[in-house]
């Protein structure tokens, strides 16, 4: 692995960060630590503020309050979707262009590019136009380009959106390899099962932190008990606090008394987020707010 382990472990991140776009508060007093050699995930639906958080960390958004800790600009790699790829250039030309922009010498570039492209499964696609690559290959190329200058902090905004599971597994291995090499990595995703790969997770909802911690800590902290019942066996009163789990319905009992008929279920990260969202719901909420 040519991505060097940094001598001093560093913790990047944001503290008490508030970002406003005009009248709208996009992030409201949010904190997140992004340590080196670690994969950290930011999770939330559309409009939750996760992209804003990543852009603030990258220095692309001016905070209204709080502070941002990041390395010098040339030590940051930032990928938002597959946009970082030049579609009219070949894979090799993309690499050469980015290497030049960062002043990486030819020999060094060749060694790093070979390693990263091989790991990304792109070694046989070097002569292909980036615009002719599949979505998954393009996302992997975007990652390679962002990692080429061996940044200390890698910021990846939804790197797996639109990527099929086979490429996704390869992409996660690329990400893990960079973290193993000492890089601090923060990934935004809408998918909770992906977030469970991370050492620490921040769940955002409407610009606020809904949950934070290691996935196992978050599920262990869940208040009350979950259990699964056949859909027609769920009491009407419990329906608003229940959701489908395949053929069964998962019911949340906040008071912790499970149904006599069912054994408690092991909560997933998604369950924990649903419970936290239900707890945060106000009775008379604005539609879709």
């Amino acid at each position, binding site marked *: *692995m040519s991505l060097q*382990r940094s001598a001093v472990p560093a913790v990047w991140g944001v503290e008490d960060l508030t970002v406003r776009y005009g009248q709208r508060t996009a992030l409201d007093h949010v904190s997140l630590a992004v340590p080196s050699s670690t*994969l950290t995930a930011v999770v*939330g*639906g*559309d*409009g*939750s503020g996760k992209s804003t958080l990543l852009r603030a960390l990258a220095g692309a958004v001016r905070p209204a309050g709080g502070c941002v800790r990041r390395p010098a600009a040339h030590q940051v790699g930032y990928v938002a979707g597959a946009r970082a790829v030049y579609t009219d250039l070949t894979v090799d030309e993309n690499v050469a262009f980015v290497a030049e922009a960062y002043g990486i010498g030819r020999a060094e570039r060749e060694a790093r590019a070979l390693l990263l492209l*091989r790991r*990304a*499964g*792109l*070694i*046989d*696609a070097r002569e292909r136009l980036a615009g*002719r*690559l*599949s*979505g*998954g*290959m393009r996302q992997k190329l975007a990652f390679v380009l962002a990692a080429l200058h061996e940044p200390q902090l890698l910021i990846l905004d939804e790197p797996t959106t639109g*990527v*099929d*599971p*086979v*490429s*996704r*597994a390869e992409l996660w*291995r690329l990400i*893990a*390899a960079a*973290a*193993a*090499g*000492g890089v601090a990595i923060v990934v935004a995703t*809408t*998918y*909770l*099962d992906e977030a*469970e*790969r*991370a*050492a620490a997770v921040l769940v955002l*909802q409407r610009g606020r932190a809904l949950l934070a911690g*290691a*996935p*196992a800590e978050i599920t262990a902290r869940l208040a009350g008990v979950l259990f699964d019942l056949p*859909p027609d066996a769920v009491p009407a009163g419990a329906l608003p606090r229940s*959701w*489908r*789990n*395949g053929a069964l319905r998962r019911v949340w009992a906040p008071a912790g008394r499970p149904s006599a008929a069912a054994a408690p279920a092991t909560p997933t990260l*998604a369950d924990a*987020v*649903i419970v936290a*969202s*239900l707890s945060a719901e106000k009775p008379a909420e604005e*539609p*879709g*707010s």
Partner: protein
Amino acid sequence: MTLAGDVLFSARAIVRRFGPLLAVDRADLEVHAGEIVGLLGANGAGKTTLIRIVLGLLPADSGTARLFGLPPSRGTRRRLGYVSQGLGLWEDLSVAENLQFTSRAFGKAAPAVWDTADDDLAAASRSLVRDLPLGLRRRLAFAAALAHDPDLLVLDEPTSGVDPLARARLWDTVHAAVETGKGSLVTTHYMDEAGQCDRLVVMSEGRVVAAGTAAAIVGDRAAVTVQTDDWATAFALLDEAGVAAALVGRDLRVPGADPVRIQRLLDAAGVAARTSLALATFEEVFVALAGEPTTPPAPGTASEDGA
């Protein structure tokens, strides 16, 4: 009307070529009333081609396609509700106007938006779609697809991009529709969506390579788990040895590997680690199935392509 167990959607031995590319290779797929079937596969596996053939939007080279027991036609397609990834809504029309438009297109009376069980949608009935958050747009796309009371729902990554509570509510809608006797075919890349399906069908390179419940497809396949205080060293070491490990939290997982070999590799390098065997996850099995090329590629090449 359909009866529980009726075959709504049926593909038998479908073959379709695009020039030299065999896009669908003798594929079978059935969806019955009262079930949700998940169709999974990497990009280019042939999922979309197969669905388009059964819907009558593309001819097959051979094989039999049936929609509600009949050759696909404009008439049979009327009994279908479809939610595409792009949602297919009119951004410049209001919620109510979108529902009216789709219903009239299907020759049904316009439903009153206040008749939908969805209070949030009813409250937003005069809002333009482009002003709605994604979660509510997805709910509207579902309402529009259900407005003409279709017998089969075809959904393409139906809950992509929304938060878990909104996702759970969308699945409530799908399950409720299916419990009234409709069927649903869901194409997805995402494992939590696959977890909501009664049955899964996995395609790779045009063929159906696995079918059944997630548990049946996983069977007794295993993954090696590696617990260590120094995952980074363990990962780099395994990587160097050509072992494709995945990071999960601070542990590593290696699907389909031999635990003795992994332990030996770690021991030889003096990495303190504990290996054990665990049941593989559906995603691990799926990646192995979907990624297994029928013709072995040169070392180091990707099995995926933009076909």
